[in-house]
């Protein structure tokens, strides 16, 4: 035992000297990290120096009015699809979890159909709904109609897009919500029942807030998928982000830089959404761990202090 150590135990308890612990050296890690960094640097260099990317053109069009308007369309389509899709999806999940075999079957069937049909195919169907049902009527089933409208007038490209995206999203949302609800322990429901709470209140106050812990990561995934999925609407000439840059490059043939404009915007919005998701997950994790870990921002502040 070295005499200089402050924390030396009482001399009677230890006689053998304490050896220093040396962790295993891992030279392979350094080599592989260096290799990857070299490849990465080469890739970055080529992207920056390759004139064909035309970064000056990208900068020029990045905040062009048409592009920003397209971005706006993409964003409101995404939000509307998410809200409507999850509202319908939650209703489908409730049907699926109800004890009624008919409702369970209908919910299952919906998910089966709308998960099977590609979104693009579905959008084309909705756009051409007039060919299937020339008029849409409101009335008593198998009885007289009250109102009748031509479906081509009612379902324009924008409506077709909203309907198609929502129905598609709802099928996935239903499974996400159902998965979350199923993940909540049955004892929670029983405890709430024993307190005299009704089914609806238990779902709202006890089950869904806990289900959110597994719903949010999956929903965040779905949201980002939807954001990018909205780009298929350019096929129906709805002027979203992708269609806006296509309009421009069809005139000036600067295809690559304009696609980069759209790409960078998609990356920016996805990054913002990922950050938002982190904080939403944190909110629903309250009570799940003994103490929440600090956010990156809190960690940074702590280090600077």
């Amino acid at each position, binding site marked *: 035992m070295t005499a200089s150590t402050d924390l030396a135990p009482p001399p009677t308890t230890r006689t053998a000297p304490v050896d220093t612990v040396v962790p295993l050296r891992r030279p392979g890690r350094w080599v592989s990290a260096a290799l990857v960094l070299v490849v990465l640097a080469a890739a970055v260099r080529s992207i920056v120096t390759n004139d064909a990317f035309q970064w000056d053109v990208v900068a020029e069009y990045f905040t062009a009015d048409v592009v920003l308007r397209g971005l706006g369309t993409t964003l409101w389509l995404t939000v509307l699809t998410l809200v409507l899709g999850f509202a319908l999806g939650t209703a489908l999940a409730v049907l699926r979890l109800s004890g009624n075999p008919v409702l369970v079957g209908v919910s299952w069937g919906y998910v089966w159909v709308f998960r099977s049909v590609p979104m693009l195919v579905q959008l084309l169907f909705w756009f051409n709904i007039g060919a299937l049902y020339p008029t849409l009527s409101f009335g008593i089933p198998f009885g007289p109609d009250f109102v009748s409208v031509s479906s081509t007038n009612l379902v324009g490209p924008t409506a077709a897009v909203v309907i198609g995206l929502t129905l598609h999203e709802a099928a996935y949302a239903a499974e996400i919500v159902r998965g979350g609800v199923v993940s909540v322990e049955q004892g929670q429901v029983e*405890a709430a029942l024993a307190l*005299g709470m009704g089914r609806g209140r238990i779902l709202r106050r006890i089950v869904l807030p806990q289900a959110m812990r597994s719903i949010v990561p999956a929903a965040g995934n779905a949201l980002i998928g939807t954001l990018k999925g909205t780009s298929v609407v350019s096929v129906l000439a709805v002027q979203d982000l992708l269609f806006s840059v296509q309009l421009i490059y069809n005139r000036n043939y600067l295809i690559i830089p304009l696609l980069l404009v759209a790409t960078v915007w998609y990356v920016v919005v996805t990054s913002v959404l990922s950050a938002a998701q982190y904080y939403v997950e944190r909110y629903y994790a309250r009570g799940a761990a*003994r103490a929440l870990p600090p956010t990156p921002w809190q960690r940074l502040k702590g280090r600077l202090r």
Partner: protein
Amino acid sequence: MSAALVRISDLHKSYGITPVLRGVDLEVRQGEVTCVIGPSGSGKSTLLRCVNHLEKINAGEVEVDGELIGYRRRRGRLHELKDRAITRQRAAIGMVSQNFNLFPHLTVLENVIEAPMGVLGLGRAEAVARATELVARVGLAGRESSYPRQLSGGQQQRIAIARALAMEPKLMLFDEPTSALDPELVGEVLAVMADLAEAGMTMVVVTHEMAFARQVADTVVFLDEGRVVESGPPGELLVAPRHARTREFLARVL
């Protein structure tokens, strides 16, 4: 001698084709503590769960405070009640389970005020006042803003008791309240339950804690294979059981 608060007669219950309760008769008088003991699989928990209609019964009847639980009688048949009526009956019967089942996303205070506000329609101020008093009563004053996972098992179970009491129930059911606890935490929960019994609460307790049964119970019921084998004051049943099966069981657990 006071009137029976709980009256169970000829209760039958099976899961699928497996019979669990085969004709249970039981009476619990107002203000008394009844401990139900018996080997695992004897139907103790199922019996409790029938008292607040967490389980549908197959035959017989359960009455609490003169009211048939979960059903109403019409022309000699029992018709199951609507959810709303069952909910109202459950609100008057407190239950504490083995796994506490506190709501993990709510703080201690929110756990305790949730049902009084949502079910009884209490105002927030009144619910909070009642909750604060109950949390203090179970010895956890000052922990109102903790989340359940920040508490020990014994503390969680005491909050679960406070949560049930916040509904001002006329009857408390305890389903093995200390079975999931570390041995050194059992005492604090049993102490709260003994206080509650002292205060005159009518309680049905499924337990393996024979010492608790001996000290606190007015009646001990021995259940085996879905039937009440014998029941009586703890001084008799635990000390000088009449049936061989009871003696056998006690020899194993005491």
